[in-house]
């Protein structure tokens, strides 16, 4: 890995490509970029590199607490990792694709917006990202999300409730797609249901550290750790340089192409500090909304699956109701979130679930910067659309779970966050309602590509990172074909 630590050697240097961040958005873009010539590439990462051993010993994903990197007037937490590999360190590696309807919310249901690309546009890149992460999954999922390539790894072992649901509802209930290895591969151990994926003792989930460091070893790439990008400098239509803090010194480098892949709070903060603001920069911060629910089972044991979450149910996902309230995705858990069942001989007769509903994007929920340049979140709470999605899902749950011997369903509590910050530099065809175009290029600064979950047009219920990775690979691909043309 070509690490550069000396500010003096970097100052004034010119690079063909300057990439901000090493998380999902940036790393998958770099991966695809390196298939082309790519030129001289500089990667600027705010955090340090903490390998698996460090993270396990320190019970943390990074030495830099993310809570210190933003402020908010609302107690809702926004979770992320500042460090080499970004969110690949802390994620749980749940990797569903988005539903094809997620990309067409406005034209199908009259709410939200349409993405400027379709599921079909993204499909080949979903396959490539799944291949890099050795995703394990259920081939039957192709019924809902068509696929041109098989899952790289076989599906995880489902629980008994999953098997019953799948038998009764084969086109709705699937084994969870996940980058938690089903079989040991590419230096990663097999997932063995340790049930604490934020710090996986088996190193079974995909991370940049265990699955992608080779791209940073490429001789064309210079990586700078501890480099907090403060600003970009631009004229009316293009970015010329990036200014970052390294060891307390401001360093400026110039470049031809800039790729902004800090997260959905830090990326808009960089643009705002750079006076590259626009009416929508930082607006629309959102995430899906989740709750914990439990079903008491009569005579059926749970928890015999091979990973932390084993089932994903789409029975409440799509339909005309989305004009009125949010889609819901039901996650079947193979962990006892609320403890085993306290009844003699029936300790495993319980099914913990997470219900996650989609959210509508609200421009009032936003990222600003304080006078000292630190990101500040303004967030007003979940919308009535997503809350109604939750209450409707709860009401429909008894019918959904009919294949199981359910005695009782109990609402447990709201989840404080899904840890999925999204939507502050949205993608769209129209510059009046978006910040970047279908190729993820800034509508105004034509040599600035934005990657990461900040680019999401709308909020699917599904976990975002596979889509972040696929979008990045597509953006790099589009750029490559453009330069070839």
């Amino acid at each position: 890995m070509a690490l550069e630590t000396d500010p003096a050697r970097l100052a004034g240097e010119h690079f063909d490509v300057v990439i901000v961040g090493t998380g999902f958005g940036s790393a998958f873009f770099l991966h695809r970029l390196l298939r082309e010539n790519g030129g001289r590439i500089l990667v600027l990462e705010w955090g340090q590199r903490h390998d698996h051993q460090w993270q396990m010993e320190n019970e943390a994903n990074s030495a830099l607490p993310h809570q210190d990197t933003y402020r908010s007037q609302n107690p809702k937490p926004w979770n992320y990792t500042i460090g080499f590999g970004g969110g690949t360190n802390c994620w749980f590696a749940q990797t569903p694709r988005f539903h094809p309807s997620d990309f067409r919310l406005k034209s199908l249901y009259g709410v939200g917006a349409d993405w400027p690309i379709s599921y079909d546009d993204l499909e080949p890149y979903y396959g490539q990202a799944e291949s890099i992460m050795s995703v394990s999954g259920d081939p039957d999922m192709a019924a809902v999300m068509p696929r041109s390539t098989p899952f790289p790894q076989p599906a995880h072992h489902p629980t008994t409730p999953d098997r019953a649901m799948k038998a009764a509802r084969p086109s709705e209930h699937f084994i969870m797609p996940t980058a938690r290895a089903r079989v040991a591969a590419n230096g990663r151990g097999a997932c063995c249901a340790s049930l604490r994926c934020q710090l996986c003792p088996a190193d079974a989930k995909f991370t940049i550290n265990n699955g992608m460091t080779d791209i940073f070893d490429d001789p064309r790439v210079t990586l700078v750790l501890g480099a907090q990008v403060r600003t970009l400098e631009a004229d009316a239509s293009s970015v010329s340089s990036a200014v970052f803090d390294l060891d307390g010194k401001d360093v400026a480098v110039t470049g031809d192409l800039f790729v902004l892949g800090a997260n959905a709070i830090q990326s808009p903060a960089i643009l705002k500090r750079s006076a590259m603001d626009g009416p929508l920069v930082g607006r629309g911060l959102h995430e899906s909304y989740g709750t914990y629910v439990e079903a008491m089972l009569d005579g059926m044991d749970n928890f015999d699956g091979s990973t932390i979450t084993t089932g994903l149910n789409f029975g409440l996902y799509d339909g005309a109701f989305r004009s009125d309230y949010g889609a819901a995705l039901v996650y079947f858990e193979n962990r006892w979130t609320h403890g085993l069942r306290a009844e003699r001989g029936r300790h495993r007769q319980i099914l913990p679930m997470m219900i996650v509903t989609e959210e509508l994007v609200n421009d009032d929920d936003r990222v600003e910067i304080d006078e000292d340049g630190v990101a500040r979140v303004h967030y007003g709470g979940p919308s009535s659309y997503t809350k109604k999605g939750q209450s409707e899902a709860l009401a429909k749950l008894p019918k959904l779970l009919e294949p199981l011997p359910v005695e009782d369903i109990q609402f447990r509590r709201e989840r404080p966050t899904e840890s999925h910050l999204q939507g502050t530099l949205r993608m769209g065809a129209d510059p009046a309602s978006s910040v970047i175009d279908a190729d993820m290029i800034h509508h105004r600064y034509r040599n600035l590509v934005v990657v990461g979950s900040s680019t999401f047009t709308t909020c699917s219920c599904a976990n975002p990172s596979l889509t972040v990775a696929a979008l990045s690979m597509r953006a790099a691909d589009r750029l490559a074909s453009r330069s070839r043309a």
Partner: protein
Amino acid sequence: MKSELSRRGLVVGAVGGVAVVGLGVSAVVASVRSGDVARAILHRVVGPFRMADTHLDAVIYVFERREPLPNGWKGALLRLAEAIPGGVAALAKAPGPGKRHEEIERGLLTTFMMTTNYLEEGGVPAAEIVFTGVRDACSSPFAVLTPP
């Protein structure tokens, strides 16, 4: 045979990738006072089992490190509920204390199952149950991990 829990067993942990949370003997002893109600709950929800006090104290200590058992009037209410016939059912009906009681009994039961050899012994009442430590990796005793 009643096996004794050695200090080494407490601090270093058992074999096979099982790491024991660093337990000091004095901390274990201090937790014993709140242990009686925990014992009552465990015997009620697990069923009969044989276990040396020192081992059971270690289970309770692990539980209390995360979630101390209530003291004061809340603790008294809990002890009372476990002591009198129909007490647990009555407590379950009270929204606040009932919810807390459920959390405690489920948490204790889970800690017991995850830190002892109870499941390996197949729940046979005559078996000697011992504290085996907090397992970090591959911690689910129920997972089926047979290769595909």
